[in-house]
């Protein structure tokens, strides 16, 4: 209770401080608009269908990219992670490709697909893929040796070993990767719209800036922040729910 109250107080303080800066004339309201104006803009937009359409464009790009990246990463990650030979052979390649900033690929994607959703998807998938892929590779290789030997003594079939040994071991890793990938995919979805110009919230941000609409710009930035917050909360919840049996979650519960 104390935490919630203090948190709300902090938020209120931030908003009041923001309101005071243009009111006292520290920064011209043209560059930093009043909070009240931005909140008013938000309430107005929430009733506007065009706003929700833009939001749905962004979220569609996000969800499509995340799904494609996750699928590819799970298939490739499990395939490579389970075979030591492949794991060794691909190591250098992975270490070299992973740190390549995905935004470096924007020009290439634009040349290949034009100013379209598909160009944005290239960037989103590339960035989100590595987050899941690396976790899955670690995950499937992390099977406890005692458990593995036990499974061998019981002569579990290949399918049984995958189901009862590899999957439970890799699941926490996969979900961590998924949570990281969801956040990264949202960043790149908005960024792609800003730079490439496919329709969505990011493009609206860029348009508001070039039109000098500071209120709309700050409002849209706040919306993307809230979206990011929502994505984080949802994926953390999913992670905790589906790993309720796992030691890390159990220990956390016991410590409370």
């Amino acid at each position, binding site marked *: 209770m*104390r*935490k919630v109250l*203090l*948190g*709300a*107080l*902090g*938020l209120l*303080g*931030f908003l009041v401080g923001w309101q005071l800066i243009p009111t006292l004339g520290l*920064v011209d309201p043209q*560059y*930093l608009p009043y909070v009240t104006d931005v909140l008013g803009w938000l309430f107005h937009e929430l009733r506007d269908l065009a706003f929700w359409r833009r939001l749905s464009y962004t979220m569609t790009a996000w969800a499509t990219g995340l799904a494609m990246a996750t699928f590819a990463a799970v298939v490739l990650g499990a395939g490579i992670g389970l075979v030591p030979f492949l794991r*060794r*052979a*691909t*190591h*250098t*390649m992975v*270490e*070299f*490709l*992973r*740190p*390549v*900033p*995905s*935004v*470096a*690929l*924007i*020009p*290439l994607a*634009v*040349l*290949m697909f034009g100013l379209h959703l598909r160009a944005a998807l290239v960037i989103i998938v590339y960035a989100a893929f590595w987050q899941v892929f690396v976790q899955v590779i670690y995950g499937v290789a992390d099977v406890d040796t005692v458990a593995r030997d036990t499974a061998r003594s019981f002569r579990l079939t290949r399918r049984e070993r995958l189901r009862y040994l590899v999957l439970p071991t890799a699941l926490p890793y996969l979900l961590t990767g998924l949570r990281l990938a969801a956040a990264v995919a*949202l*960043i790149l979805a*908005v*960024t792609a719209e*800003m*730079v490439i110009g496919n329709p969505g919230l*990011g493009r609206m*941000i*860029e348009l*508001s*800036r070039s039109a000098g609409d*500071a209120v709309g*710009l*700050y409002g*849209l*930035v706040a919306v*993307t*922040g*809230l*979206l*990011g*917050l929502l*994505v*984080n909360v949802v994926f953390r919840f999913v992670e905790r729910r589906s790993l309720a049996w796992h030691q890390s979650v159990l220990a956390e519960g016991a410590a409370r």
Partner: protein
Amino acid sequence: MTALGAKKARLPGPVLRAVENVLFALGLPVLTVLLWGIWSAGSTNRFFVGPLTILDAFRRTWIGPAFVDDVLPSLYRLALGLVASILLGVAAGVVIGRLRLLRELLEPLLEFFRALPPPVLIPVMMLLLGITDTMRVVVIVSGAVWPILLNTIDGVRATDSVMRETADSFRITRWERLWLLVLPAASPRIMTGVRQALSVALILMVISEMFASSAGLGYRIAYFQRNYLVAEMWSGILLLGLIGVLLAVAFGLVERRVLRWYHGMKEITRA
């Protein structure tokens, strides 16, 4: 596992094993480049150019005055932004981590700023600061500081209670406490934060230049793309990739040095 180990032990000498390691490390990259070269030689797609053409473009484009005019200023801004983020993030993180009241006041705000996609801050900073080099550095800081700040807070909070009480009973001074207890205890988490900040900072460096600049790496690459200079564009992607890889390698070295005691400790507890 034992069967594999036995087979390996029978290999004649360490030379063969070194050869095997090199083959594993370089096999796939070399194969990929070869296949790429063969395929691009027969391909009529003008957006895929061969590795040799890209290398040639790389030499022509980046080695020479462009390195001083475009690459160095970008790297300088990146370094400046990163150093400022680390100083700011660690300093604020130590303060917030140690004061419970402050932490609880700021928690929702910090969660919000962590979740905010960093590139949306570029238009905001352009509005507030104009299109300047200061703006580009501030953009990098405004995105890269959050992972460091939040990880430092967590690291400071998780300081071992026995060590804290020991420090209390020895009555060490505030500064000694900070240098000898709080910062070392938080350093594994701080390094995690810095690693996340590296990639964010690199992204922001590129995008802030693609957006609002007439020089710099990001600007150059976008320029090549708009003018259909395909080989030059590929060479720019290659350069950005190299910078990303070098940053990761450099960070790995620094981390190993800073956290040597930590990795050593983990090995002991495992053994």
